[in-house]
């Protein structure tokens, strides 16, 4: 019993606080910093890509290094930025939102985090092995046979993916156990804040597909080194088998990257519209249906590989069906704002931009879902435009908006609103200049993942590069702003935003190290 009561006194300082911590707030902070650091690493790689594509012909890097950049950029942004950032939010927010004293399994929580830096050291170290073939370069989708032929970097990628998978599975288990078991009395499932709901469903997706991804890369590894023929037709296997397994993971994965974003936006919009979320129940059901449908649409990434006609049709219709619950969500966000008394602080700006721009991404997704159209669009810059609209103006905008929204709560200081607005506008403008032209490039036939292009594509590419640099450098402003908010700034009140509702806003800003040691009562 002694240890049980002693822990409230234990509040280690210095480096060991961060290394050994079992506190959800500390672990949340660690996740968020890791994501921010890797955001700049991955962003720098994107700028190498865009710099090379500023003009046709080869300028800055050789094709092989270019391919390493596209591959590593995607792997880092997906697994190192968006996913850890969401887990950071989950750590900070879920216990505070459901009135729990911490995450359900605090030591495991620390473990889920600390696996990540090691995995990324392993993955990134390949950049310094250029003589052995350098970093993985067959694309983040790791398709064989190209991946079978890659150098040692591919093996590093596979093993780091295994580590990332362990981290995600442990993290997801923790989220589920916390939400199912740690809610304050009266916090019924259908009273949970939407961010908590979206994370609960995301955690199920993670548990269902990360192990499948681990299986897929394990087969790659044995095909590479132990003579198996999973993906080799000469031995009775099939390279397409990999694509099926990969996308069975990959499509739910893109929803892992967007559902928590839906949750964040569903917290922000009611606050600044000063109205409760419109259609709470339908939001929950829509999230669940999206998650369910995400398991039966994977082959829309494979329309051009020669699937049987019945397969093409099934996956086309199933994919289009996802637009229905997605439309429900967009409708609800807009209706929440309808006749609200709206103000546009930085979090709200990002949320509104999310609604507009994510919808553009959803619509380009619908175009891609049309099989005959996809025959033209597949593997062109149109796909690149699509997934940057859903991932940057979707996932990343929600993360930035969420950071502005909760930063005052976390740090106890208000951020500088003027700087925040600058950051927002530079980001939105840079983003659209960078990615809108890519739709046209794709429709005109410019292939993705190629370091050179035909002359007629030059102008749009130059716009895109200029926009990308604007977008990239605008993020330095965010870094500055975060550091400034931590260090100084106006004292934030408990309520922070006058329209904000929920348990986290009943806690002081910043909240004490341990919160809700005795559960609050929820009416």
């Amino acid at each position: 019993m002694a240890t049980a009561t002693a822990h409230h006194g234990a509040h280690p300082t210095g480096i060991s606080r961060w290394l050994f911590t079992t506190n959800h707030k500390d672990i949340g902070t660690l996740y968020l910093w890791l994501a921010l650091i890797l955001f700049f690493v991955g962003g720098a790689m994107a700028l190498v890509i865009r710099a090379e594509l500023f003009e046709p012909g080869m300028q800055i890097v050789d094709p092989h290094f270019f391919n390493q950049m596209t591959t590593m950029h995607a792997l880092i942004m997906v697994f190192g930025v968006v996913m850890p950032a969401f887990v950071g939010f989950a750590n900070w927010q879920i216990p505070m939102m459901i009135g729990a004293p911490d995450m359900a399994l605090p030591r495991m929580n620390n473990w889920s985090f600390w696996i990540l830096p090691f995995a990324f050291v392993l993955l990134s170290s390949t950049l310094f092995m250029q003589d052995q073939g350098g970093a993985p370069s067959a694309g983040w989708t790791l398709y064989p046979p190209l991946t079978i032929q890659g150098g040692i970097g591919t093996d590093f990628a596979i093993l780091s993916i295994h580590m990332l998978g362990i981290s995600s599975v442990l993290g997801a288990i923790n989220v589920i156990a916390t939400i199912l078991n740690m809610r304050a009395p009266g916090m019924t499932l259908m009273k949970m804040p939407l961010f908590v709901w979206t994370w609960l469903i995301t955690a199920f997706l993670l548990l269902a597909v990360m192990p499948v991804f681990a299986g897929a890369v394990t087969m790659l590894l044995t095909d590479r080194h132990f003579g198996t023929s999973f993906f080799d037709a000469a031995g009775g296997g099939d390279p397409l088998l990999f694509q099926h397994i990969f996308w069975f993971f990959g499509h739910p994965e893109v929803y892992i990257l967007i559902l928590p974003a839906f949750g964040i936006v569903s917290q922000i919009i009611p606050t600044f519209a000063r109205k409760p979320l419109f259609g709470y129940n339908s939001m929950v059901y829509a999230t669940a249906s999206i998650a369910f449908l995400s398991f039966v649409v994977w082959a829309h990434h494979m329309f051009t590989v020669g699937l049987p006609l019945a397969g093409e049709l099934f996956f086309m219709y199933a994919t289009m069906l996802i637009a229905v619950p997605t439309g429900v969500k967009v409708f609800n966000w807009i209706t929440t704002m309808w006749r609200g008394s709206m103000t546009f602080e930085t979090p709200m700006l990002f949320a509104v931009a999310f609604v507009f721009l994510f919808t553009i991404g959803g619509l380009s997704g619908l175009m891609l879902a049309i099989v005959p159209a996809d025959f033209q669009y597949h593997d062109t810059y149109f796909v690149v435009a699509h997934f940057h609209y859903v991932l940057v103006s979707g996932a990343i905008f929600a993360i930035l908006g969420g950071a502005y929204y909760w930063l005052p709560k976390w740090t106890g200081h208000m951020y500088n609103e003027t700087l925040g607005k600058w950051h927002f506008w530079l980001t939105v403008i840079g983003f659209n200049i960078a990615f809108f032209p890519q739709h046209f490039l794709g429709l005109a036939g410019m292939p993705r993942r190629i370091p050179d292009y035909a002359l007629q594509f030059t102008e749009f590419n130059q716009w895109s590069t200029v926009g990308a640099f604007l977008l990239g450098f605008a993020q330095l402003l965010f870094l500055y702003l975060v550091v400034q908010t931590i260090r100084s700034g106006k004292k934030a009140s408990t309520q922070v935003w006058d329209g904000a509702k929920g348990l986290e806003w009943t806690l002081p800003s910043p909240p004490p190290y341990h919160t809700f040691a005795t559960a609050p009562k929820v009416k």
Partner: protein
Amino acid sequence: MSTAHGNYYLPNPSPWPIIISFGLFFLALGAVLTINSLGAGPWLMLVGTAIVAYIIARWFGQVIGESEGGIYNKQVDRSFRWGMAWFIFSEVMFFAAFFGALFYVRQFSVPWIGETELLWPGFDAAWPTAGPKGPMAITPDTVAGANQFSPMGAWGIPAINTLILLSSGATVTWAHWGLLKDNRAQLITGLFLTIALGIIFLALQIYEYIHAYTELGLTLKAGVYGATFFMLTGFHGFHVTLGVIMLTVILGRSLKGHFRSDHHFGFEAVAWYWHFVDVVWLFLFIFVYWL
């Protein structure tokens, strides 16, 4: 469901997670170097494994101490239950990837290769197959060649192993009944029998592998049949090994007098895991060996 959690146990800061992450890092790095035949690989793997094993022992040791110390309330117990249940679900999905591969090659890729006359003239798209890259001979007395192999029949060792694993599922349940009735002798005997059956299973599995490699020409390299056969049964065997280790720990704890009829999550977690391994085997027996 949610109760007042004034006394939900929140552990102190712990060094185990970061040290075990170091261990995993060495293990992964060592694995990459080893498969590329680079010098320090095996040593790094050894160091990594040692760290991981040591920390698991210490970490679980601490949890067991806390549990026996009585500081876990019912709510903590429920967290562990959710955790273990969903961990097993993730394991199911890991196996699903390999079963998916097996179904796909049998249903699609092998028949499709058979239809491709230009590339593979004369290829007979029948299962089991090592694919078109070499001649197939699936009669029992074939000499092992590059792609010549005999498949593993279902009704010899695999059928016996099915019986063994099913009985072990029964013995572990019997042990559980013993625990519930506070009959320690039944608990310990049941666990002992389960472990013994698990070890016999593994021994037969090893024997089967040796037989496959030395007499049947059935290896990892024997086309997609060999690949799916060894990866599925191999990962299963690995999980049985883990299960046996876990059962042994539980047996040790039972001998030390741990567990009460109303407080034995550790036992149940291992029993669940054992049943999971059992069910996977049934699918293996049906789809890998039999059909």
